[in-house]
Structures are given as C-alpha cells and as structure tokens.
C-alpha cells in the first residue's frame, strides 16, 4: 500500500474506488432510479440475456446513468427472449422483447435518456399478484 500524501490524492483515490461501490449506493435508493430488470430464466440465458445484461451494466457505468440493473425470473415471453423490463420513476413499466447488446444500448440512449418510445415493446397483458388487491 502506498501512502496517501495529500487531500487531493485521497479525493482521487475515492473517485477510483467509488466505481466498485456504485451498485451498493444505488440500491440504497431504488425508487429514485430507473430500474431495468433482465429476465434471466433458462430461456433468457439461452438466448443471450447475460450478454444483454453485461452491455447494460457497462453502458450505465460509463455514462453514469441513474439506473440499476437487476435480474428477474421468467416473465413468460419465451418467444421474445431476451426480454427486459424498464421502469422509469413515475411511469408504468415497459417490456422490450428480442433485445440484444445493440438494442440494449439503443433502449438506454433513446428510451431512458431521451424518453422516446421504440419498436419491440411487448404490451403488458398481465397483472401481478402484488397489484391485485
């Protein structure tokens, strides 16, 4: 370990270290962030969900986008895997089908950052048990 020689060095060190802790910081305030859930059931993984997830995580980290990527189970859209569900705070969740690494980046740039709608949205036709009262 090298000694930290000044406050400036300490601040630089903090910046390089906070990267690894980002995911934990973000999880502290999940409701104020865009939540992206990648369906990671067997069908999703087989169609490349892991590549999609990696692409999403990298992009978010690079561009410092206030979003958090989590894994979910099978949503039932096995024909359209990999699928991702995007929930922007204050909006209804939107599910995108047939996502690959390129489309994943497109979704972030267009839908999350600019708020434009894209092709490939799967109309949600279900209610989850949590919503049903």
């Amino acid at each position, binding site marked *: *370990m*090298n*000694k*930290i*020689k*000044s*406050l400036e*060095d*300490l*601040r630089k*060190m*903090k910046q390089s*270290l*906070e*990267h*690894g*802790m980002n*995911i*934990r*910081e*973000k*999880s502290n305030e*999940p*409701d104020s962030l865009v939540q992206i859930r*990648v*369906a*990671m*059931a*067997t069908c999703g*993984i087989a169609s490349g969900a892991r590549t999609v*997830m*990696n692409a999403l*995580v*990298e992009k978010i*980290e690079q561009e410092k986008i206030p979003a*958090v*990527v*989590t*894994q*979910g*189970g099978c949503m039932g859209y096995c024909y359209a895997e990999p699928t991702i569900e995007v929930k922007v705070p204050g909006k209804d969740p939107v599910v995108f089908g047939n996502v690959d690494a390129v489309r994943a980046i497109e979704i972030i740039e267009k839908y999350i950052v600019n708020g434009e709608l894209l092709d490939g949205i799967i109309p949600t036709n279900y209610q989850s048990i949590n919503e049903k009262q």
Partner: protein
Amino acid sequence: MAQYKMHLLVCGGTGCRASQSEQIVENLKSEIKNLGLENDAQVVTTGCFGFCEKGPIVKIIPDNTFYTQVKPEDCAEIVTEHVLKGRKVNRLLYEDPETLKHIEDSKHMGFYQKQLRIALRNCGFIDPENIDEYIARDGYAAIGKIITEMTPEAAIDIMKKSGLRGRGGGGFPTGLKWEIASKNKADQKYVVCNADEGDPGAFMDRSILEGDPHSVIEAMAICGYCIGATKGIVYIRAEYPLAIKRLKVAARQARAYGLLGEKILGTDFDFDIELRYGAGAFVCGEETALIHSMEGHRGEPTVKPPFPAEKGYLGKPTNVNNVETFANVPAIFLKGAEWFASIGTEKSKGTKVFALAGKINNVGLIEVPMGITLREVIFEIGGGIKDGKKFKAVQTGGPSGGCLTEKHLDTPIDFDNLIAAGSMMGSGGMIVMDEDDCMVSVAKFYLEFTVEESCGKCAPCRIGNKRLHEILEKICGGKGVEEDIEYLKNLSRVIKDTSLCGLGQTSPNPVLSTIEHFYDEYLAHVKERICPAGSCKALKLYTIISDKCTGCTACVRACPVDAITGEKRQPHVIDADKCIRCGACYDKCKFTAIHVQ
C-alpha cells in the same frame, strides 16, 4: 477491475458468526466459482444489519433481497436460483409477523422503514476489514478537509452547532467537551474512546466497532486535531474479541495509507491510536474509573472535579467520548452541522442507536431519529410483543435507568423526556417486558447486577445496594412486609444522594421507577403474597384439584420433598408448608389436576 453485477452481503457480526456466517461466506464463494460467476457476483462480509433475531442475514444487492436465518446448506440454492437465474428463494425471505407474507426486499420491511442510519451508516454496507470500501464512501474525507482547511476552533464550532450530545449515557454536549479540553494547555493531551460497553443487553458500540471501525478512528483523529492531542487510546473490553480484531486491522490499514501516524496527508498533524483492554468491569465505563484502569490502577472512580479535560490520563488533559458519539462525527463534518441539527428534537439532535431486546419480535440493533415515540420503536420497528402477549413496560438506560409504561408509549424519545419520565437514555439498551414479567423481579435483577459491579470504594453504593437487593429478595421470596416499600424508597434516595460516582447515583433508579409505576404489584407481593405476573416462584401456590385427581401417585413420586400425600386412587393433597414450588408435580400430572396460583 471486474464490474460485479451483484453483491452478496453477508453479516459478519458476532451474532451471525455464532450461527455459522463464516461458513456461509465460504459456501457462497465456492458455489459462485463452480458456476463460473466469479466476475458477476461478489461476496462481501459486512458488519451487523441489526436484524439479529433472524440471523444469519444475507442481503443481495442491487435488488435488496433480504434472506434471513440462512444456513450454510442454503447457499447452493441461493446461488443457482437467485444469482444465476434471478429467482428469489422465497422460503428464506423475511415473513412479516402480522400479515405472514414474505417481504421481497429490505426497503419494504417495517424494521428498516422508520430507521435513519448515521452512526450505523456503514454497518451492513461495507466490508469493515477493507479500508478501500470506507474511503469509497467518503471515508477520511472529513479529517482530510479539517486538517488542511480548518482551524481547530472552527471545527469545534461546527461540533457545537451540530448539537451532538454524548451517547454513552450522560448526554453532555460533545462540542463543549472538546472546547474545554482544547483550552487546557499541556505538552501532551489524550483522546480516549470509551468502548467499555457494560449495560446488560446493550451491544451498540460493539456493532459499530465490528461494522465500521474506521469511522471511530477517523473521529478520534478529528478530536485529536481539535483539542491538540496526538495520541488516542481505545479502552475496549476484552470480551469483544472480534471488535478488537477489526479495530487492529483498521488501524494497521490506516497506518499503511498514512492516515494515522506522522504528517497525515502531508500536513503537520500527527495522530495515532493504541488499544487498552478492560477486564469487563461495569464501573470502568465511568470516565475517571476508566482512566485509572488505563493507568494500571484499580478501576475506581474519583471525585470530579478535576475533570479529565483538566487532569486525565497520566495527569494530562484527556477527552473521553463513547464509540457511538465518535461514529457520528465524520458524518457531521461531511454533511454539515445544519443537516445534523435538523434531525431530532429541540435539545437532542441527530439519531440514537438502540439495542432492542426482551419480549419483542425483532430483537436487534436499530438507529432512529431522536423524537420518535416508543410506540413506533416497539410496535413498528420492533414488530410488537412476542407471541401476541400484552406490552407491560420497557426498561431503558440499563442498570441506571428505569421502566417506562404504557402511558409513556407516545412520548417522543430524547434525553430530557426520558429523564422527565423517570428513566434515562443511557447507552441505548431497550429491554421490552410483557405481562409475564414481574416488576419486582426486574428491579431485583438490576440490583443483582449493581451489587456485583459496585467497585466498593464508597459505602452507600457498596452497602446500600446490597441492602436494597436483600429487601427485594425478601419481597420476591414472599416474606416482605408493607413497610419494606417505604424503606426501599428511603434507602434509594440516600444512595442516590451520597454515592461517589454515577454508578451509585443511578443504581436505585430501577427500584424507584418500578415502585412508582407498579406500586400495586409491590403491594400484592407484600400484602396478599401473590405475584400478579406469576413469576415469583416462592409466591406460587400449588394445589390439587380433587375432582380431576385420579390418585395415580405420579406427583408423589415426582415431589422431591415429599410434600404430596394421599391414598392410591384417591385425590391427593399438597402440604403448602413443605412445598418448595419447584413445579415438578405440575409437569408430571397427566390430568391437569395441579392448579398454580
């Protein structure tokens, strides 16, 4: 550096380690490796999450899934289901005691919703043995800013404006304490961290040191700069081996980075710490006794003044603060005195950590803003009373505190309100009692502790507490008389007025407050000779219900003192004079023919 998509935080506090959390860490790591996910998921040992009742805890980030009572053999399922396939392991999720529903993540748990974590900000969040994680969360930024950009006076001013009061029990304003120590001139001064946590049922300081040792070290350095001390000493009880280990690791790492030692961050400020171990004497939590113990003398208090700020360790000006007080300090400098002063009540700023224990559903460690009510703490965060029983009282302030009852449930908790209600904040132990707890026995329990822990230097404490305990034993033993209650009250007042140190001055509090709030219960013990809670053994009356007794003689054989007599196949009787109330007959009887009153 790999970009992990998932962090698995495993509690490495003393409580969870006792239930194999180290094995859990090992198993999670090896399962992750087996599936080739080591670049995706990271396993981190953290400090206490506070939810000790349901430990060991495994928390999964970023979705905040909160797994409780995890066993080493559950790890394979967690990794293959959750980490690989994104499916939560439902059976390990926390179940809400009221709705019996599984709660998906910690943000929706009542236990966490009302909490505000300042002193515990890093507990259960970072790896306490990795200084980099502390630095990533602005660790050592406060000391860095202070020693490069501020004068000691300006820093003390911020402390005073924040309104922080000592969390060890007394509630003395911390900024003022630092100012007094800073004004006394000497060639050497000392910063002492009081980690001699001794209240029964309290484990706030231990958890902070185990979960976030760097915050305490950083705060001690800040204090050193403010008062002009270059040496810090942590007085910690030897019964806290894990806290000692993590403090040592933390100090070593800080030294390696040059954050302790000479010329910190290129300035002229030198500071380092060392550890002193206490043998676990309660009285050593009192600052003068603590200092004597550090000097190698008997842990006995002396009269103040002189205060340690004038003549403390080795006769030099010494500032003693408690662990939790220190843990608040870096946060105050990072976020500002105004921010800290905006939390809490008029005279008690910030938060307080409490150790919830006793007959409560969620036993554990919580941090709440001052001014929260007991009702919120006990029923919302604590999840209510165990087994649907009725709330009776809550004991705060440990052996120096008192009991609060139903009528205090809506009182906002702060230093002054608790004193007005006849108890005190103390270091933050909160023991909840239900209808089965006898308040005379509770007072007796605390007196037993005080008698054991009194250092014996002054007579009121040494002899007086012993007498108090004897009278309480007499009352619980069914031999008390009505005059005893008045006698208890008088003696208590004398002990309070004439004892040398805080231990004796507060030790009769449990007696006085139980007499005040539960006078009827005392009266029932001495006049009717019954214990309304049914807990005092000697006051139980065992009789045989003759209609139900078949004369099987099982109880006769069980009775160790031959107090039961009767013909075979005829109803038996218990001789109340011979009976020692052991309950053996009650346990043996197959016909529920034994009646206990």
